């Protein structure tokens, strides 16, 4: 990295509140403020630490569900399942998302971070909350699993830790909004914010609803665990809790779609096909995506069909339409960029000759495909009231959200990390060949976990259940043998995903600590190069309006065929179980 310059902050004629220090990235030309850079670093490091912890717990869960191994006893299983959920669904994801918010605002807009002291306070609260939650769970009195439904009661420390973490995350979101205002006021950009920043804004808006829902339900639950409140209504808890529990995963969707656009721009110089269309798709998320929380309550008797159908079958489908628009425009933007880069032969030269050895690209594209085919289609099936009864509260549900959060979000975040390490930490990737294979291995593992858990769930295996063979049940029951095959395959693919996860953590940590230096007076090129127009494509407004996308149209046609086929296969399956005479 080259120049360091200082900018005075404040309105003309007034004393500046503080002096922000910037450096200019020699690879992108982007102006990076020191506080924003430091906060991106610490949040990214914390994210990877909690991914490592949570991933280890996840492997233990999968090895216990694999009946030939059945690693853990019941008490340890529920403890480890709780720790797995908290560490990966909340801590890994949200630490990384805060880093994404700071990157998409301060770095892409070339602005200083608003209120960096508040941002540090938020980070400290998040770390304290995450550590306290792990302590509370590992102590053994909070094995209530991620959903923590009453009347199961955890230690007060567990609820307090989640509240602390949520407050810290809310502070981070507020700093993001503040940074947007600072950038506008100081005119670091003209017109509209870039699409990647708009995607991050979408994630931040959903985060506000998510954290507010969490506060509404976790504060009375904390008081209940302390003995100040006598009772928490289970259905009321489920309703409000899922406003946090499911919406937190919608933050992920918005963030990883923003990352898809960012990686396409930075690696290939891809611009959106249409800024207007992509922004409208994000608007669909802002308005409707949180309502998908209702699909967890489709089997609850206390809520009317009107509430269920309006929230899922009507409103959720509008958010699904947003996802399908991104499913067209992201590969479409990549195809358009590749054709502009000279790969014009046939329908798929752009895809065959894409930079598959670059882990940022391969991770992003695998994330895109698996999120759509596995997580997306299964989400629509789960969100349909009638079909939901086929697999409600079975292992199909974790299968679905491993398709969205692991194969989709986690893989996209891993891909982005391969850009964050050289551009923000100023260290090159230490072991490039390992980095090339890592997204493929992790993607195969994550895809397998999702598919086989959904398979086991379709055969009736319950989620959150240690004793799949019902050895302790007073009435004998046996699942079909295929269910145990699915659980075994789930275990094998969990091992593959774990190997991919370990490769990621080891390579990233080693690169940060002892990777080749890129800063200062270094002139070393990047191992995985960026596109010449990376910064312009990622940080400015503008479309590459074209419809000459034969490869993308074929891929989208394939997706629709799979979608329609799977959707109607489930209706056929339902009609065989649910006979009307």
């Amino acid at each position: 990295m080259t120049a360091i310059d200082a900018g005075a902050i404040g309105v003309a004629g007034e004393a500046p509140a503080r002096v922000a220090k910037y450096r200019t990235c020699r690879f992108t030309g982007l102006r990076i403020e020191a506080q924003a850079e430091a906060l991106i670093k610490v949040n990214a490091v914390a994210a990877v630490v909690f991914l490592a912890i949570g991933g280890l717990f996840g492997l233990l869960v999968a090895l216990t569900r694999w009946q030939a191994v059945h690693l853990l006893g019941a008490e340890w299983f529920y403890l480890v399942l709780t720790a797995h959920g908290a560490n990966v669904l909340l801590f890994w994801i949200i630490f990384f998302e805060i880093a994404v918010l700071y990157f998409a605002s301060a770095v892409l807009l070339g602005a200083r971070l608003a209120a960096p002291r508040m941002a540090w306070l938020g980070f400290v609260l998040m770390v304290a909350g995450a550590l306290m939650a792990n302590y509370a769970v590992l102590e053994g009195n909070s094995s209530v699993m991620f959903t923590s439904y009453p009347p199961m009661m955890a230690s007060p420390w567990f609820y307090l830790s989640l509240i602390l973490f949520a407050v810290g995350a809310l502070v981070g979101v507020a700093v993001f909004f503040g940074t947007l205002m600072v950038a506008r006021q100081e005119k670091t950009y003209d017109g509209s914010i870039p699409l990647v920043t708009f995607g991050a804004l979408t994630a931040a808006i959903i985060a506000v609803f998510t954290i507010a829902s969490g506060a509404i339900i976790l504060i009375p639950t904390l008081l209940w665990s302390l003995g100040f409140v006598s009772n928490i209504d289970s259905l009321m808890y489920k309703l409000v809790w899922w406003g946090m529990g499911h919406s937190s995963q919608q933050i992920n969707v918005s963030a990883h779609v923003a990352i898809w656009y960012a990686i396409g721009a930075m690696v290939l110089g891809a611009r959106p096909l249409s800024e207007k269309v992509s922004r409208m798709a994000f608007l669909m998320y802002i308005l409707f995506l949180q309502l998908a929380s209702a699909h967890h309550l489709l089997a609850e008797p206390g809520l009317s069909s009107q509430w269920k159908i309006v929230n899922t079958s009507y409103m959720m489908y509008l958010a699904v339409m947003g996802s399908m628009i991104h499913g067209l425009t992201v590969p479409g933007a990549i195809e358009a960029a590749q054709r502009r880069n000279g790969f014009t032969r046939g329908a798929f030269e752009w895809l065959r000759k894409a930079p598959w050895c670059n882990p940022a690209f391969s991770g992003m594209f695998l994330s895109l495909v698996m999120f759509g085919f596995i997580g997306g289609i299964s989400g629509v099936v789960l969100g349909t009231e009638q079909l939901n009864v086929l697999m409600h509260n079975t292992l199909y549900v974790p299968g679905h959200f491993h398709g969205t959060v692991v194969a989709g979000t986690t893989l996209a975040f891993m891909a982005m990390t391969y850009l964050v390490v050289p551009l923000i930490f100023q260290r090159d990737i230490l072991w490039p060949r390992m980095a090339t294979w890592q997204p493929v291995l992790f993607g195969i593992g994550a895809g397998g976990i999702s598919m086989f858990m959904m398979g086991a769930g379709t055969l009736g295996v319950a989620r959150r259940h240690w004793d799949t063979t019902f050895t302790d049940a007073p009435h004998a029951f046996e699942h079909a043998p295929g269910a145990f095959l699915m659980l075994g395959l789930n275990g094998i693919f969990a091992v593959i995903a774990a190997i991919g996860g370990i490769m990621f953590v080891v390579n990233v940590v080693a690169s940060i600590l002892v990777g080749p230096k890129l800063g200062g007076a270094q002139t070393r090129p990047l191992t995985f190069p960026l596109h010449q127009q990376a910064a312009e494509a990622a940080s400015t407004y503008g479309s590459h309006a074209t419809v000459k996308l034969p490869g993308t149209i074929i891929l989208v046609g394939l997706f629709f065929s799979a979608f329609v086929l799977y959707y109607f296969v489930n209706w056929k399956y339902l009609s065989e179980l649910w006979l009307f005479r």
Partner: protein
Amino acid sequence: MANDGDTASSTPEAAPGPIPVMQQVLDSPFLLLFLGVTLPTVLYLIWGVMEIISVPLAD
């Protein structure tokens, strides 16, 4: 940067006319925040809470 329409090139354009209403909406983070919090609060939370509290208590 050009923000009034799609361009076939990556070169930024100057805005030639008034900004369309929809773009003004999309350029207003706090309006979007208001919409993104209000809609799920009304349709999912408030409506859901009203349904639950209207379930009669068992004798």
